[in-house]
């Protein structure tokens, strides 16, 4: 069960697919979040298709890396990454937030195999990952633990409890990524309740900090490498991103935090992404390959 380590071109293509998935599934559900999923797409793709050693064929593989999105509301990108990576059929994405589907509005372990721990209340995920990282080290496992957080989420005090904990126990198998898109529900993070200077905060809490353009995939990969090489302390990657990235009319606008595109807006968005609602829906409905491996990837188009 090696890391996937797709090539840059492949990663960029995957990220494009993920964005198309996000728009398509939101257009279908007419409920859910657009902004955060799109800002998390590029580093999320780097994580799932290059950095992490996961095994969708055997979910309880003891050697697997662990990942957890503390921002449970970005399920569109989580589910798309999972489906594209082979955790479940792509067609399931069309059941997002439906009573009948297995894709809850926020991640649910018992509904969606592959989710390690359910989430949805902000600020709790880093603590969960601290427990996983501590336990993994106890087990002398070489696995790494990845936690994705939001920037608005940094306002939750529990994050700083977890931050202190991880530094105290020198959890260098823990890597956190912050989707630093500068927006939250009510507006600009700095207007709502300022978190700057964020890198200083994390440094003062004893973490190794890497700042990177969260849409620059090579940069993100280098940041992951730096995290891997950092010993004796956990690493946090401040991934500077743009909310709604990739869709012209969504970019950098906090109003897209929690709403889906209308069908018309989805058509416009998908056109910008080089496809259409009908054809991408068809792709989701018909593309059933579960496994994604370096040799057998990119089968969909």
């Amino acid at each position, binding site marked *: 069960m090696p890391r996937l380590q797709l090539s840059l071109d492949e990663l960029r293509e995957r990220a494009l697919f993920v964005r198309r998935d996000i728009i398509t599934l939101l257009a279908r559900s007419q409920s*859910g979040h657009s902004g955060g999923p799109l800002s998390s797409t590029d580093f999320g793709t780097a994580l799932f298709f290059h950095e992490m050693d996961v095994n969708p064929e055997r979910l309880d593989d003891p050697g697997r890396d662990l990942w957890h999105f503390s921002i449970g509301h970005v399920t569109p990108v989580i589910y798309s990454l999972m489906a594209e990576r082979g955790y479940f059929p792509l067609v399931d994405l069309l059941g997002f937030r439906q009573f009948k589907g297995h*894709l809850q509005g926020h991640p649910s372990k018992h*509904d969606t195999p592959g989710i390690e721990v359910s989430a949805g209340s902000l600020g709790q995920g880093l603590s969960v990952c601290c427990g996983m990282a501590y336990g993994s080290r106890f087990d002398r496992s070489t696995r790494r633990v990845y936690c994705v957080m939001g920037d608005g989420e940094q306002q939750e005090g529990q994050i700083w409890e977890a931050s202190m904990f991880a530094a105290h126990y020198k959890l260098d198998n823990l890597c956190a990524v912050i989707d630093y898109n500068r927006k939250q529900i009510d507006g600009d993070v700095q207007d709502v*309740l300022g978190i700057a200077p964020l890198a200083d905060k994390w440094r003062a809490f004893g973490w190794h900090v890497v700042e990177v353009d969260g849409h620059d995939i090579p940069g993100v990969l280098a940041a992951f490498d730096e995290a891997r090489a950092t010993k004796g302390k956990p690493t946090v990657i401040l991934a500077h991103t743009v909310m709604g990235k990739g869709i012209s009319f969504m970019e950098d606008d906090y109003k897209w935090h929690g709403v889906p595109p209308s069908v018309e807006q989805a058509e416009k968005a998908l056109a910008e992404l080089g496809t259409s609602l009908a054809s991408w829906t068809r792709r989701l409905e018909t593309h059933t390959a579960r496994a994604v491996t370096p040799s057998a990837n990119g089968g969909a188009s």
Partner: protein
Amino acid sequence: MSQPTPVMPAPEAPVKSLAKPEMKRTREGFGHGLLELGEKRPNVFVLVGDLSGSTNVSFFAEKFPDRFLQIGIAEQNMMCVAAGLAALGKIPYLATYGAFASCRSADQMRVTVAYTDLPVKIGGAHGGISVGPDGATHQAMEEIAIVRSIPNMKLIVPCDYWETKKATIAMADDPHPNYIRFGREPVPVVTDANTPFTLGKANVLREGKDIALIACGVMVYEALVAADALAERGIQARVVNMHTLKPIDVDAIERAARECGAIVTAEEHQVNGGLGGAVAEVVVRTHPVPMELVAVHDRFGRSGKQEELMAAFGIKSPDVIAAAERALRRKKG
């Protein structure tokens, strides 16, 4: 709670339109109530945890920006900042999702707010599964049990837009901490601008002596619909709108038990420690009668549409009717 409960007929319009009721969001009642308070009371403040829009405190924020306080995503801090303001004589209302208001800041509510007995007014949005597609984490269903257990707290679960608005305004007069629970989606309007609302006094919306349906929140409508259906079968069901869960109207419950001999409670909440429990506690202490509890039976919510979920979780009017029939069988048996 010693005076008799006033019996008032359901207002004309809504009863007439049970089949096709006007739909209105209770959270709008909260927002509009705050707006009215903003005008009337210069010491009312509103605090929010990055959820201005979905809690509808944005109405107040636009009109009274200087008394609106954005806290960000920090519910614990919000509860205690409100306490600090209240300690200065202000009347702070805070708003976030009920799941977080009741759980994320439970300790702050207990120690700083309730133990100090400060007039902090807590608005819990997105109560119940009727929130819909957000799913379990955002569907507040433990609030009644939690808030009811904390001394000095009062708890209101209004049934519709008008009652939410009235309750929101009434809370400002109470010098103690209060919690109000409301929902996200539009729900049937069953009262009107003139229906009386007194904190701690249940409203009897429909008279009847065969069985009492005691409900709160959106379930008041379901109970009214059920009562209509029961009436067609010759069963006269009393419908009691138990909008205040704490202090609960002991007199209204005792009278229901004594005069009707069987009770069905209906709530959009976990069955353990909710309205059903609160009523049962009174019933066994005053006048024991058979009861059936329509509620969510100790399971987490999930994504789906409002109607779909209420049906799946067994809290629609047919469930109330079935419960009434079970209770009536037990009453006779």
